[in-house]
């Protein structure tokens, strides 16, 4: 660390073993001030363990966690400038909404009037003033979630931690609450770490996303880069849908193992070795007759504002997102408008050539 007291959150070469298994392996992650970072990954990838280490509920076996340049790794949760929103909200059932939110302030021995003022203003922020004196059991799941958020925010922590906060809500509410969370986070500009396994959630609210797998960060990038140029095979298949083909690359086309050639924009010949070629379903162009490879429609799945086609192209399968009004012919033509190339699981070339390491 050359820079003196870097602001924000820094996870510096942190490792953690639990029950004889390495959950987090030499993790490195930096969250800038006012930034919302999502830890995204399948269950067991170490994202929750990482969050619990930031919150102080677990001690890292190795490495440091720095908040605004101060090492907090050995501090108990009550001494850290972090606040956590738990997956099950963890509201205290024997306290009213007001008391739940006020508890942390009371522990800080603030004057009564100030506590009242701060609790009321944070309840206003999350839109819960009408439930000030309700007990948690009396309010809905979405409202409990907002109480949990208010309880965390009222302490004005330096880092806000959210552990899959939306997983207990139904689908409609989940979308609304995540927008609310993002809106509040941006309004008060709080540095936030958000854990989720839902890529849709991560893509729609994050400044940056750290995709985790097997205790390591596979890629840390903004949502657009993550989607357009997934750094690894894992990220490509975990974030969004992706068709994968084992193929050799020619100028303007790819050649599948059975010899089928599919036109593909933006690729050029690069040796004889085979690549894993990834194509997003929206980059698969289906036309009634064109210069594409011949395909067969196996299935049509209506998706509302678009239609998903499952096609068979030269022994391989291709999924395509097309306009719902497109009437598919029996034997349409398929071409790819964009592809990403992988070798040994790592990104080799996107639309602009990427330096090969």
């Amino acid at each position, binding site marked *: 660390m050359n820079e003196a007291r870097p602001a924000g959150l820094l996870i510096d070469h942190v490792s953690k073993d639990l029950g004889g298994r390495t959950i987090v392996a030499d993790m490195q992650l930096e969250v800038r001030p006012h930034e919302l970072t999502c830890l995204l990954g399948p269950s067991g990838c170490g994202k929750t363990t990482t969050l619990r280490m930031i*919150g*102080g509920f677990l001690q890292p076996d190795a490495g440091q966690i720095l908040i605004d340049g101060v090492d907090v790794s050995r501090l108990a*949760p*009550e001494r850290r400038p972090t606040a*956590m929103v738990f997956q*099950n909200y*963890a509201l205290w059932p024997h306290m009213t909404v007001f008391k739940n939110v006020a508890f942390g302030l009371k522990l800080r021995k603030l004057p009564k009037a100030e506590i009242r003022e701060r609790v009321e203003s944070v309840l206003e922020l999350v839109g819960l003033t009408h439930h000030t004196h309700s007990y948690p059991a009396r309010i809905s799941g979405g409202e409990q979630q907002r109480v949990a958020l208010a*309880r965390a925010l009222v302490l004005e922590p330096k880092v806000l931690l959210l552990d899959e906060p939306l997983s207990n809500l139904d689908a409609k509410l989940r979308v609304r609450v995540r927008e609310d969370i993002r809106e509040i986070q941006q309004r008060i500009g709080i540095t936030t770490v958000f854990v989720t396994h839902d890529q849709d959630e991560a893509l729609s609210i994050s400044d940056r996303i750290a995709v985790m797998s097997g205790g390591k960060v596979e890629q840390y990038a903004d949502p657009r880069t993550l989607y357009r140029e997934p750094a690894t095979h894992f990220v490509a298949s975990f974030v969004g849908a992706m068709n994968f083909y084992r193929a050799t690359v020619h100028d303007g086309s790819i050649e599948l193992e059975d010899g089928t050639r599919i036109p593909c924009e933006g690729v050029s010949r690069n040796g004889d070795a085979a690549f894993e070629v990834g194509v997003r379903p929206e980059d698969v162009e289906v036309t009634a007759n064109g210069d594409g490879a011949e395909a067969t429609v196996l299935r049509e799945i209506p998706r509302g504002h678009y239609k998903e086609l499952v096609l068979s192209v030269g022994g391989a399968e291709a999924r395509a997102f097309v306009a719902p009004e497109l009437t598919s012919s029996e034997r349409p033509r398929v071409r790819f408008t964009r592809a990403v190339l992988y070798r040994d699981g790592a990104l080799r070339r996107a639309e602009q050539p990427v330096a090969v390491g």
Partner: protein
Amino acid sequence: MSAVEHQGVALGELEQAELPVARAIRRRRPSPRRVGLRALGIVLVTALLVFMIGPLVWLMVRAFSGLWQFPDLLPHTWTVQWWRSVFADKNLSHSIKLSFEFAPVVTVVSAVICLPAAYAFARLKFPGRFALLVSLFATNAFPKIGLYVSMAGVFYSLHLMGTFMGVVVVQLIGTIVFMTWIPTAAFSAIPRSLEEAARDVGAGPLRVFFRVTFPLAAPGIFVAMILSFLAAFDEAQGTFLVGIPNYITMPTEMYTLVLNYPEQAAAVFSILLAVPSVVLMSFARKHVMGGKLAEGFQIR
């Protein structure tokens, strides 16, 4: 937990939806079998009531009866003289006082010893945890009197026979299972995240216990204390063996009472002995079973 609850709700709705249909069928054709079953049910419930309430009613009548001769269903004259004589009798009133001294002391000592153990059983993983928890039942698995006789040997050498301490220790045995198992269940039912959330907002471990864990486990602890109080209050065999002749509590007094006093005095005494049970149990029902605390446990 919440999934189970949702399922419960769904099932409940299903039953309600089907109910009118079922009712219509029943109304159309009351089968003889159904009538027979219902009659059997009524007979059984009545029999149960007679067996449960009957002796209590008889006890009540007995306690207030004056002259009562054989074929009569009710006493000839009514009186409160037995009550007066029980309270006037020095031995009997002293035993009442003693019982109300021992039971609270035993309950408090039991709580002090068992509640930390219960918390440890619920929250910590240590070797032999399960074996220890089950072994607490051992005190109830064997005939008590055998246990007490062998205890007496130890008590003699420790000079505990006939002492206040000795009686407290012997009564403690019957309370241990209640005081560990019920609070263990109460502590385990509290999601750890509730405690973690309190740590997160700045409370140290002790404060977390007293502001979050204890209040949430309180209903369970309260029930355990009631059951322990009653177990200590009703304990007769061990108290008799260890306590006589210095400490004669109400249940041990019953032994003498049955033999040496008029039946009516024994009836009065039995009723007095039942009073704490009835009062505490109804109190527990009212304040623990329903109420905000029980309700709060729904959120997990």
